[in-house]
């Protein structure tokens, strides 16, 4: 008589199903189990990628599905890569990426270091700091638009309180020189807690015994920071930079809500240009080529980064 649940299930399986299953090798069974996942991956990730590559060589327009699609070769790529406007957009994205990454890493690490010190209300402060990250980017974009209002905005009032200037004397999202910094400030406000959490995990993973040994060797606090804390948190920091770098390269919703790419095109990031080409001008072929260029850039950077991360972890 079968005793266990598995034995009972095996005994209850009809003979015409059980016989072919019993003859399957372990490898074949493994393939049966992972096949649905592979199929999903192919359908959701690989197929759209291949389709986009195919479209990038055509003049296809999604708003004219019945029009004849012509193969244009590398023409879309040539037009993108010789367009000074696209080049300017890339520079805006580079400025946004560098500024946000530097600010988020520096402030995020500093906050993590502070939170890691034992003090009263430690958990409460962690929760308060993490709050912006939990909001929707569309909501954040909307309420920062109000905060940046020259007449009634809290941000302008705060700046004028410290500088003594007129709150209505400047507009963060309306001036060419200030608008790029307006989106940097909001992104930093929203995503610094994410970097802080990753750094905090790194800081809490450092065994206390290492610091005790350093104390015995009379190492100064600064030396402990440089030779213990920083090297051990580095893999976590690199991970945070990778995540934020890729996310900010694709940044769209927050900036659209805040500035819509303006004034002029001073805050028009690549993703906004891509969306305009694909869904406002309906140049699907051109937009596909644009998306492939961005994909190669992100894929390349990620490859280097994962390699560097593995090296640091192995150290």
């Amino acid at each position, binding site marked *: 008589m079968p005793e266990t649940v598995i034995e009972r299930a095996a005994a209850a399986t009809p003979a015409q199903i059980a016989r072919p299953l019993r003859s399957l090798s372990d490898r074949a069974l493994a393939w049966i189990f992972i096949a649905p996942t592979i199929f999903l991956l192919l359908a959701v990730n690989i197929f759209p990628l291949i389709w986009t590559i195919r479209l990038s060589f055509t003049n296809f327009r999604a708003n004219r599905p019945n029009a004849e699609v012509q193969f244009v070769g590398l023409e879309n790529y040539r037009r993108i*890569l*010789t367009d000074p406007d696209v*080049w300017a957009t*890339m520079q805006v994205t580079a400025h946004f990426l560098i500024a946000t990454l530097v600010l988020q890493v520096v402030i995020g690490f500093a906050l993590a270091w502070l939170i890691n010190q034992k003090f009263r209300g430690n958990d409460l402060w962690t929760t308060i700091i993490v709050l912006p990250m939990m909001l929707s980017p569309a909501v954040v974009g909307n309420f920062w638009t109000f905060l940046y209002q020259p007449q009634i905005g809290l941000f302008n009032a705060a700046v004028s309180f410290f500088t003594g200037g007129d709150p209505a004397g400047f507009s963060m999202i309306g001036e060419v020189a200030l608008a790029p910094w307006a989106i940097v400030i909001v992104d930093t406000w929203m995503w610094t807690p994410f970097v802080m959490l990753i750094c905090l995990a790194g800081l809490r993973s450092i065994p206390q015994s290492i610091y005790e040994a350093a104390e015995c060797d009379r190492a100064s606090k600064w030396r402990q920071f440089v030779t213990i804390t920083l090297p051990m948190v580095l893999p976590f920091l690199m991970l945070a930079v990778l995540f934020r770098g890729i996310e900010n390269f694709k940044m769209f919703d927050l900036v659209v809500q805040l500035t819509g790419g303006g004034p002029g095109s001073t805050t028009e990031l690549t993703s906004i240009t891509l969306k305009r080409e694909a869904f406002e001008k309906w140049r699907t072929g051109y937009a596909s080529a644009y998306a492939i260029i961005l994909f190669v*850039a992100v894929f390349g950077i990620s*490859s*280097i980064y994962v390699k560097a991360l593995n090296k640091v972890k192995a150290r």
Partner: protein
Amino acid sequence: MRAFLTGLLRLRRGPWEMVASVLIGLGVFMLMQPFALVAFSYSFIVMLAGTVMFIIVSHFPE
């Protein structure tokens, strides 16, 4: 330098990955730099070469 060149000749992963990484980095810099439009124009081909090379050489022996 000698070890690096020997690694390249013997098709070892480390040096070839280094070459691919330099190509990708150079391509991304060319894509986003504010100095020359011609560098921007050739950025994609450099990035693509680096990325494809990286995928291939990551299967080379250590």
